């Protein structure tokens, strides 16, 4: 099967039960908004035979029931939705503040990041917490939000060897992205601090603290405040 190009959108089968839609080949706000608009339509009016959706930076993976749909049929339906989705107005982004205790045992890589970036730990904290980040998408594990863009001065590569265990709530950076680990998982991002707030909880409706399209700000807190919020 060959990929078809039109209006910058490209369809590519990923498996016998999934289709990838590429909105360009670069991470752009435009691609992100196109994805959210289509996602919005598909969530409001689910197509029969559609099973799952995996949004990412500039693509959307659509999983379908291969007994009911083919790539060709699905592509046709999605192209129609894409035209309609252009008219959708996205809601104003939700602003979410995440308290972070930087450095020490919570941010074991803070000092090294400062060295790599030729600056001080204080400046790293200031740079990280002084701008608002867009939730491009959630992926990797439940509730993990890919946040961007990091200040250019903080762009650092991943750790050469990923940690086997990164504690839940750890706030890390990698490349020009930042994010919070919702669970204790392996991970190769450099850790600057930790939040006492749970990122993914099953005892509330939203489950995930963050959703695609949200705006996130990190607020530095003291160890005492961390302890207070942890026990709250």
């Amino acid at each position, binding site marked *: *099967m060959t990929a078809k190009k039109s209006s910058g959108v490209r369809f590519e089968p990923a498996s016998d039960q999934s289709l990838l839609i590429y909105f360009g080949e670069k991470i752009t706000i435009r691609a992100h908004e196109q994805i959210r608009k289509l996602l919005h339509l598909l969530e409001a009016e689910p197509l029969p035979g559609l099973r799952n959706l995996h949004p990412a930076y500039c693509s959307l*993976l659509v999983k379908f029931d291969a*007994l009911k749909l083919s790539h060709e049929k699905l592509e046709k339906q999605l192209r129609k939705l894409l035209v309609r989705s252009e008219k959708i107005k996205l809601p104003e982004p939700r602003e979410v503040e995440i308290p972070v205790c930087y450095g020490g045992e919570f941010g074991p890589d803070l000092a090294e990041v400062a060295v790599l970036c030729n600056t001080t730990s204080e400046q790293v904290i200031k740079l990280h917490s002084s701008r608002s980040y867009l939730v491009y998408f959630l992926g*990797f594990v439940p509730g993990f939000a890919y946040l961007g863009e990091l200040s250019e001065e903080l762009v650092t590569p991943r750790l050469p060897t990923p940690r086997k265990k990164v504690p839940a709530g750890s706030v890390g950076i990698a490349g020009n992205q930042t994010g919070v680990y919702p669970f204790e998982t392996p991970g190769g991002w450099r850790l600057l601090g930790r939040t006492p707030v749970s990122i993914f909880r099953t005892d509330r409706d939203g*489950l995930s603290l963050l*959703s695609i399209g949200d705006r996130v700000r990190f607020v530095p807190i003291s160890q005492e405040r961390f302890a207070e919020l942890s026990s709250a």
Partner: protein
Amino acid sequence: MSEIEVLSPGLLTTVQDLGREGFGPMGVSPSGAADPIALRIGNRLVGNTQRAASLEMTLLGGTFQFQSVCFVALTGADFGAALDGAAILNWTSFEAHPGQTLRLGHTRSGARCYLCVHGGIAVKPFLGSASTHLLSGLGGHEGRALRKGDVLKTGSAPSRTATPARSLSSFSPRSSNNPRRAATKTLQLLAPRKVLRVTPGPQSEWFSKAAQKAFYANTYRVTEEANRMGLRLEGPPLFEGVHGDASGKAPGEMISEGVSLGAIQIAASGLPIILFVEQQTTGGYAKIANVISADLPSLGQLRPRDEIHFELVSFEAARKLLTQQEKLLASPDLIV
């Protein structure tokens, strides 16, 4: 409602059903039985709907004591099961009485054995499914693998949420003199495969012709790092690997995108990793191929050191194979 006590959990035993679809936007992968064919047949044998929750055991089975009468079937890999010392055949339903102990040992065939019980294993559903998601500690029995001393409850009736049309109202779980068995011939047609059929991956063109040829000619061996998240393979690395994408990143690295179940990604080492039921929902490695839907259950029966091959088929052929498989699974002749 019956109770089953876990006397020993085995290596890794979790509650699984057919998983939870539709939560990709939250980063939640479906999880669910690693070998859904075995789970579905097991459920049919005990009069459940196909998606009822059962126990998935891995490589080494557990020991379970029944507190009340249970109608049970074991499917999937043969773990040499015995009920109070008497051998129990896989793929055949049996009645267990209060106080009786079912003991399973090491695998004699594949990787996973399913214990299905009439009524299903009752757990609080998470996002509409009983499946355990180990990495995040969600779903199943307290979000974790079973431990010694856990007491599991079974549902009082088959859960019929998925296929109410296939009512089993005439089914009597107490008819132990009338065990059900899966037809040998059909089981052979559904048997797990070591030659996995695949369709091209979204980045297969990133690999040179020689690398693609090597991928299909190579024998790969399943490593110890094979679990519900993915199966890491070893074999000749695909050195003539990836061109990399337009942004000039290192070979193999690309902008993260959604990844599908059974995606075969080539890591920086040049070796394949097959993404499995508890997969990460997005990833940044190039995918050379994707295991076809009909062969995904076979992944659930692969053990470390198993040798496998990949065979390229068309999307059309993949769909036909899945349709045939579904026909066999739905066939009334499957259960005798």
